């Protein structure tokens, strides 16, 4: 439950990773959708007043469609996202990370009434907590999950750092650590960078102010800067 990374092997021969989304964002998305649905129904009931009983019939019809098919239609035709999910940056997918089809979206949304039991999605919440993919009962039956589709922020590279060949050849994991340190430098405070760099004091033997720069230069070397 702590590691929300979900991996699926796809036909491209690789493993894709996605982050599954927990109860709170999903509940917020649901609440937002509920508000939108409420507004639709209120506006419609005002608009239908002049049409009397025919208007009432239309209202019932739209109420039915909005109650049961609002999530289905959005999930199928809008890339797994109802307006609420879109706002929260989450999306419904199959457990092989393909977009949901009409059938599976219908199943997961019809079974919503069971997840709602006994009140306020208690059963759904228990189900989400009991499996690593945060699936409610409807998700389990339909084979779907909700993942985060937020845009990842691209790291800003540091201004030019001159590469420095390390005195000893580092293994690949150490190399990666160096490159990561360089890439993350802009996001870490100066004091923390000092602290991190001083772990390697015994290796770099650099003066205080040089410590950080030395590691960054080694990172740049392994990144391939020449």
């Amino acid at each position: 439950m702590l590691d929300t990374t979900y991996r699926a092997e796809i036909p491209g021969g690789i493993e894709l990773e996605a982050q599954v989304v927990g109860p709170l964002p999903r509940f917020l998305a649901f609440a937002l959708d509920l508000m939108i649905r409420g507004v639709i129904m209120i506006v419609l009931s005002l608009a239908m007043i002049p049409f009397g009983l025919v208007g009432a019939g239309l209202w019932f019809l739209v109420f039915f469609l909005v109650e049961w098919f609002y999530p289905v239609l959005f999930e199928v035709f809008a890339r797994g996202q109802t307006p609420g999910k879109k706002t929260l940056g989450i999306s419904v997918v199959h457990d092989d990370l393909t977009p949901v089809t009409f059938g599976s979206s219908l199943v997961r949304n019809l079974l919503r009434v069971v997840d709602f039991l006994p009140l306020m999605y208690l059963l759904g919440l228990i189900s989400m907590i009991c499996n690593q993919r945060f699936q409610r009962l409807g998700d389990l039956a339909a084979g779907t999950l909700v993942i985060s589709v937020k845009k990842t922020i691209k790291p800003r590279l540091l201004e030019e750092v001159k590469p420095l060949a390390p005195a000893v050849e580092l293994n690949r994991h150490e190399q990666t650590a160096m490159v990561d340190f360089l890439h993350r430098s802009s996001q870490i405070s100066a004091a923390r960078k000092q602290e991190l760099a001083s772990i390697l004091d015994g290796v770099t033997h650099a003066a205080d102010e040089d410590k950080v720069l030395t590691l960054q230069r080694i990172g740049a070397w392994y990144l391939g800067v020449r």
Partner: protein
Amino acid sequence: MKQQSFEQQHRQTWERIEQALAQRKQTESSILLADDYMLLCQHLALAKQRLYDITLIERLNSLALNVYRELYRYQRGSRFNFFSFLWRQFPLAIYRQRYFVLVATLLFLLPGLISGIWVYLDEFAIYSVMDTPQVRNVEQMYDPEARKLGRERESDTDVMMFGFYIMNNIGVAFRCFAGGLLAGIGTLLVLMFNGLHIGSVAGHLSRLEYFDTFYSFVITHGAFELTAIVFSGAAGLRLGYAVINPGPFNRISSLQIAARELIPLLYGIILMLTIAAFIEAFWSSSTVIPVSVKYTVGGLCWVLVLIYSFSGKRFESR
């Protein structure tokens, strides 16, 4: 190869893919994506294997995920053929769930028959099923003196009742299906309660000898409505059975297999209940149509629905 030269070498490809994704409404972009997708998969695999830094891997991963979701997205109109569904898939789905349909029928009919006969014989039994205002309401609706069938009668009212029947009846069918997830108990309750309720109303009105007003009203749409409720019960029971007895599968796979099997059945139930709502609102409630015509058409509908429901066997592959 160092990460930076790798990035420089392939940057153009990635940017091209990003552009194609941004303008995904245009059709030709998907052809471009298919080619670049294989390249992208290679790049991601290489980047992981060479332990390039995490930001690059994350970028390629999210790019690949987006292209993947684009390539496998739902294609409008390409999957669903309505006639093949009506002719083949729906009857076949009914045939495959025949045992559950049988059990659902019994769960619906038996309480209906028992309560019907009981209410017919015992004057006061109806009050243990419904309260007094409800009973009076039902009596008024079908009172031959009033000559007002079903609920009410102007064309405006018909439209309103159509909307109401759709909302109410399909809602009941959906809940009946979903209740199956609770080991079938929800379905069991919905089926038996509806059987009991409908049975007692029929028994009570027969006691009062309101035959023509009641039976000519319910016979036509009942063919679709009652059958569809039984089918939704069968679907719910199938779901519950998958939970209780997963057989050779694990419980979740068993549930998923059942759900996938049931999708055509769900479509069919929605269709049948829509037809039923149409008939109930615009045909059954009409006072212009003679009772004999209603019985004939209603009987015909029953025969057709039953023949249709049993027509799936020939499509089963051996």
